[in-house]
């Protein structure tokens, strides 16, 4: 007699993923990365109730494992900094409210370690003390298993091998191409190229046979990048336009720049280059992968923000919105999570130099009931 396959035995569980995305979308809507906004959304949704109603301890354990794996998924790239902070808070929340005894630990894989450390370093540099503290608490509680891989692997085909779609609204925008644009690499390439061509011209024996290089290589590369930026601009600013609700006071500058970019998205490479070089300057004191992100601080906090809006998370809580072109493109290309990770990881980093001590707002959100 074949046994019923235990529930929660896959890596993820769709209804839970939906709940988690709803929670993270609410957190995203708060436009903050403060833990208190996360915990408010958590209480509002009564999120610790996800563990209620499982009678068997083994099932409870399997479910805990699924919840923690889901949280870790959002803690890792390609999601925006804010979502990743939310993923970390979620790890903390789920680990501490799970009903399994002993508690099921959080699995962190060796291959993800360096990017987690990068995230924490960025968080420290940006003064996001609550993010760092929550992580610290998990480590101090010995909540982590240091593993080879995120999941147990038993060569089983998962019951439903679903397309591991990344929630597009949670992804930060890739700056890689803009960075390439602004870096001096293109200049160098074209210098090398012209020198090479010159040398080739002077060497009669080779001139006719050697035809590997393309004389317009740099220009074509620029065109490609401009095209990508155009597409990115269009897609993302549309998503933003869709989502613009009541904005914070500090958004005006960003929007101006954004609109300008929008008008110019067909602009020549030189225009895009100009913008990116301006941006590079504005980020220059943030060394690695400069990205800024906008988020509105709790009212009582002193804001010392240098966000330019180019790397803002662009989604809002309206998760039923049709998927973005990017998401649809990915889908039609059959891009899996792992492939996409290569493309867009390191998309986002926290806002720099925002040394704001965590302060309590007086309005502690109410209990759910």
């Amino acid at each position, binding site marked *: *007699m*074949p*046994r*019923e396959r235990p529930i929660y035995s896959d890596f993820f569980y769709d*209804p*839970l993923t*939906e709940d988690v995305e709803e929670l993270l979308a609410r957190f995203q809507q708060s436009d903050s990365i403060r*833990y*208190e906004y996360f915990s408010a959304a*958590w*209480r509002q*949704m009564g*999120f*610790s*109730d*996800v563990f*209620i*109603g*499982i009678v*068997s*301890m*083994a*099932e409870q354990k399997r479910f805990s494992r699924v919840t923690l794996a889901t949280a870790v998924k959002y803690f890792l790239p390609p999601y925006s900094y804010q979502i990743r902070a939310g993923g970390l808070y979620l790890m903390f*929340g789920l680990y501490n409210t799970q*009903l399994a005894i*002993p508690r099921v*630990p959080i699995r962190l894989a*060796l291959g993800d*370690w*360096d990017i987690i*450390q990068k995230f924490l370093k960025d968080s420290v540099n940006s003064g996001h*003390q*609550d993010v760092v*503290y929550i992580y*610290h608490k998990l480590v*101090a*509680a*010995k909540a*982590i*298993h*240091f*593993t*080879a*891989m995120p*999941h*147990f*692997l*038993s*060569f089983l*085909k998962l019951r439903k*091998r679903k397309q591991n779609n990344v929630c597009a609204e949670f992804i930060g925008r890739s700056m890689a191409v803009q960075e390439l644009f602004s870096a001096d690499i293109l200049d160098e*390439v074209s210098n*090398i190229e012209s020198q*090479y061509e010159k040398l080739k011209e002077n060497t009669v024996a080779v001139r006719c046979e050697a035809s*590997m290089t393309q004389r317009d290589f740099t220009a074509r590369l620029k065109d490609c990048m401009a095209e990508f930026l155009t597409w990115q601009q269009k897609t993302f600013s549309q998503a933003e336009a869709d989502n613009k609700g009541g904005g914070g006071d500090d958004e005006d500058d960003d929007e101006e720049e954004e609109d300008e970019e929008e008008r110019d998205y067909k602009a020549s490479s030189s225009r895009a280059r100009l913008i990116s070089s301006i941006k590079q300057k504005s980020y220059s004191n943030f060394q690695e992968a400069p990205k800024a992100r906008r988020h509105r601080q709790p009212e009582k906090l002193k804001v010392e923000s240098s966000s330019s809006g180019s790397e803002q998370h662009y989604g809002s809580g309206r998760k039923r919105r049709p998927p973005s072109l990017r998401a649809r493109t990915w889908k039609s290309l059959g891009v899996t999570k792992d492939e996409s990770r290569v493309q867009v990881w390191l998309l986002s980093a926290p806002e720099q130099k925002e040394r704001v*001590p965590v302060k*309590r707002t007086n309005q502690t959100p109410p*209990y*759910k*009931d």
Partner: protein
Amino acid sequence: MRSLMGPFGTIIEKNYITHDPQRSDVVIQENMAASKNAITNIPDYEYTDVNTNIFHIDSFRTEWLNRLQPGDFSFQSEDQDSSDALFAEEMGISADTMAELKTVCSLDSLRCHPEDQPPDPDVVPPDPTLNTLIQRKKKQDYRATLKISKNRHDLYADELERLTFGKKPETLDDMVAEGEIILNINVYYPAIFEKFCYVRPHITVLMMGSHTLAELRDAICCVSDLQVCGEFSNMPDMAPDFISKDHFKSAFFYFEGVFYNDMRYPECQDTSITTIEWAKDRNFPTYTQAKMEDTRFVDLKIKVGFPYLYCHQGDCEHLVIITDVRLTHKDDCLDKKLYPLLAHKHRVSTQKCAVCHVYIVRWVTTNDQFAPSNPCLFCDKCFRMLHFDTEGNKLGEFQAFPYVDRGAFN
């Protein structure tokens, strides 16, 4: 020697000097191949969600230890207050700010119900809004209409966990070392019986990186090790002495091109040599051999999630899958003597007697005129009552073979 790692400019220059622009491609390809083939010992998927690439377990362990602080994987519990104080110091946070941080991030922040009105953890609330709960409620309501007995694997796993959670040994010598490797290993049984068609019967064994393959071998209990014990219908009292694997020691594991033979006893034969020579004749990649008893898990190069082989009795083959490799944790069983630890066993391993349906099977009979089936399984008590008179004389015709529960370890 051309430097493969040279910067872009260097390559172009060299290509010009060789007057061979085609080389440019070659170099770049070589370059890519070199970086692709490098073994990093940082596991990554070979096939997403299925299995990893190959890595060396001890190097993997070293990679982790290089990245962690000793406190991260120590078995000592940390004192919350002193660890918070340390955190404040490292981060340069004032006492006031730290106090605020602690309040904001306290576990109270996660409480969704008033403290004095906790929900019933066993019952899904009546009008759930979370999708997870809506689904669970549907399922629970449906299940209530069925009668599903509790999953026995689950019970076993629960019990095991309860007994071994954070268990410390009596003497320090038996203490598992901090930063040791722990492996989850599934050993699958050949699907002999029809009832196995839809599930894959297996045991799950936890082993330390310092264990040898021979110790895993000794933890695997298989019916075919017992079939050879002989027929005992005329002398059932003699049987227990013969139930052992001692007579047929030869066996091997196969991982990543290497056959690991059990050579602990003089009568052991290298049963892998047949396969190796067969492969040699057919131009397969060459296989090598090593001794099971000299090979620790940390010495292995393996893919997590990939099916390997355990072969014994000449032809009884079991798939072996290492499903997880990680550092030990303070909540693991820390008593070395309790390893290999059986974390899961398939329910077929505890067969019940065909007569009383209560006791675990000790005997298999064939051609048994008293039995309702052929073969038939009996507990010791029912077997003797049914097949022997009060003086212990055999009644009727049948053959009897000792049957040892598959999951019975020690």
